[in-house]
């Protein structure tokens, strides 16, 4: 006699994960409790006796942590495996389930982090910032609706894939087509971030050099002042902002500094720049 999980139970597992993947976080057991909470309805439906329930609940007590949104696939896979185990597949034991869980969480975290907060969110936020330049709420509303909508759909999709295909579901995110898609997404992200940097960063210098006076075409004496900012803009618009970005990238990539250290260095740069007159916001009462 085979047991088949009802749609309701699978949905419960998904939504418990969706709402609670990180809520009980500690550094000792990051998403372990979130994972267990998702599995409880499944375990309760598949097994009627406490011995089996306890055995299966304990399967999910080892450490678990990944990018939680793409990680809903692992929950889907586990639900599928647990169902198969309840149907008497002897080869599915704690070791196998946890082998898959532990084997997937690292690669999925890498892919998920670079794809979701590293690419998709910056693209959406850049567009949203473009919609909000004049203080309009449109950008915020756009981001909230599009992000939550697409992400919920994506999470449910890969959860279902995980349940249907088991371990083979991984091809959905690391197959040839998926890899090509991901690389292309990163490309859009990098281009959009370039535009964002040019539109939202405005590093400028107040430095100017007095070069004496000269006579203009009308024969009047005019002060000849060289404004460094104008010269720089002539070379490439917003050049200083570009250089500042490259400077922070260099410190973080080549010098392996943390963002906080880089921010502290910028505090020093700002202070020194103000003292020597390179930076001057030009405000007074």
């Amino acid at each position, binding site marked *: 006699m085979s047991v088949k999980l009802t749609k309701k139970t699978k949905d419960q597992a998904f939504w418990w994960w969706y709402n609670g993947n990180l809520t009980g976080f500690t550094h000792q057991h990051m998403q372990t409790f979130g994972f267990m*909470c998702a599995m409880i309805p499944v375990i309760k439906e598949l097994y009627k006796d406490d011995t089996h329930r306890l055995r299966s609940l304990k399967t999910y007590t080892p450490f678990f942590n990944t990018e939680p949104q793409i990680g809903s696939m692992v929950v889907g896979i586990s639900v599928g495996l647990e169902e198969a185990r309840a149907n008497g597949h002897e080869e599915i034991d704690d070791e196998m389930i946890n082998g898959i869980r532990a084997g997937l969480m690292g690669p999925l975290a890498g892919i998920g982090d670079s794809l979701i907060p*590293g690419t998709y969110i910056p693209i959406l936020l850049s567009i949203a910032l*473009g919609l909000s330049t004049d203080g309009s709420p449109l950008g915020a509303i756009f981001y909230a609706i599009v992000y939550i909508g697409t992400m919920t759909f994506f999470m449910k999709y890969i959860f279902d894939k995980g349940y249907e295909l088991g371990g083979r579901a991984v091809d959905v995110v690391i197959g040839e087509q998926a890899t090509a898609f991901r690389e292309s997404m990163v490309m859009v992200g990098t281009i959009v*971030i370039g535009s964002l940097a040019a539109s939202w960063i405005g590093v400028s210098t107040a430095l100017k050099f007095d070069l004496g006076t000269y006579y203009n075409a009308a024969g009047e004496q005019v002060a000849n002042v060289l404004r460094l900012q104008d010269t720089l803009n002539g070379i490439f618009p917003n050049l200083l902002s570009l250089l*500042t970005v490259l400077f922070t990238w260099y410190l973080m990539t080549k010098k392996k500094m943390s963002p906080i250290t880089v921010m502290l260095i910028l505090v020093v740069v700002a202070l020194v720049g103000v003292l020597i007159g390179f930076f001057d916001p030009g405000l007074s009462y």
Partner: protein
Amino acid sequence: MEINIFQALLLAVMASLTSVIGALGTTYSWYTLSRPLVASLVVGLILGDVKTSIMVGAAIQVVYIALVTPGGTVSADLRAVSYIGIPLAVAAVKGAGLNPASAQGAGLAVSIGALVGTVGTVMFYSTATMNLIWQQIGWKAIDKLNYRIIYLTNFIFPLISHFVIAFLPTFFITYYGTDIVANLKEWLPMDGIPMKTMFTLGSLLPAVGIGILLKQVVQNPVDLIIFFFGFTLAAALKINLVGAAFVGAMIAFLNYKIIMVGAGKKSASHEEDL
């Protein structure tokens, strides 16, 4: 600008719910409600000044555009940036009589936001540490198959951590802090060194947000060319961000096609070998 008790309470509730490990779930709290741009709309509604709040929030958002939290390391828990930083920045910008859309207004807002953001890091690690208490209770419940306690461990007990570590500080800082920052100009002249440094720092900090992102996507310095291309679209060609997204999408589409054609050839020649 003054914040009343009711407004401070609402801000404190939002800060409690929107951590990366906050009570409202990853997708709609951490990745949506804690983003400074989205939060600025919520803060604007609470404070009754949506326009200023969004201008301030948008400027701060650029600094945190690409916040990735690998393996539970958090460089800034955005709830502090968003629900303490934005209200304080709004109060400071208004108090100093600056236009929030100006470079100086944005600079001041960004500096305050980033300064407050460091509080968020402390909040994150404290909450995670306090949750250890609840997990101790949870582990004992597993052997007894007490499902209710397991759910409480993951969903309800952590609210106590958030209350102590996020709710109370947010309430007090926003309630008493806005008065202090609103009178900033009385004790720090705008043409003095400290304020000039604040404005300048605010113009430099967004570069860190972009730098964090580049660090992830640029494996090889040659890849910087893609970034330069995007920068040029806006800086020299004056294409707006939505336009740049479409230009980027077109190029990515071509890139995808090229990779897939290459892949198709490879598998085709592979079949011939057989």
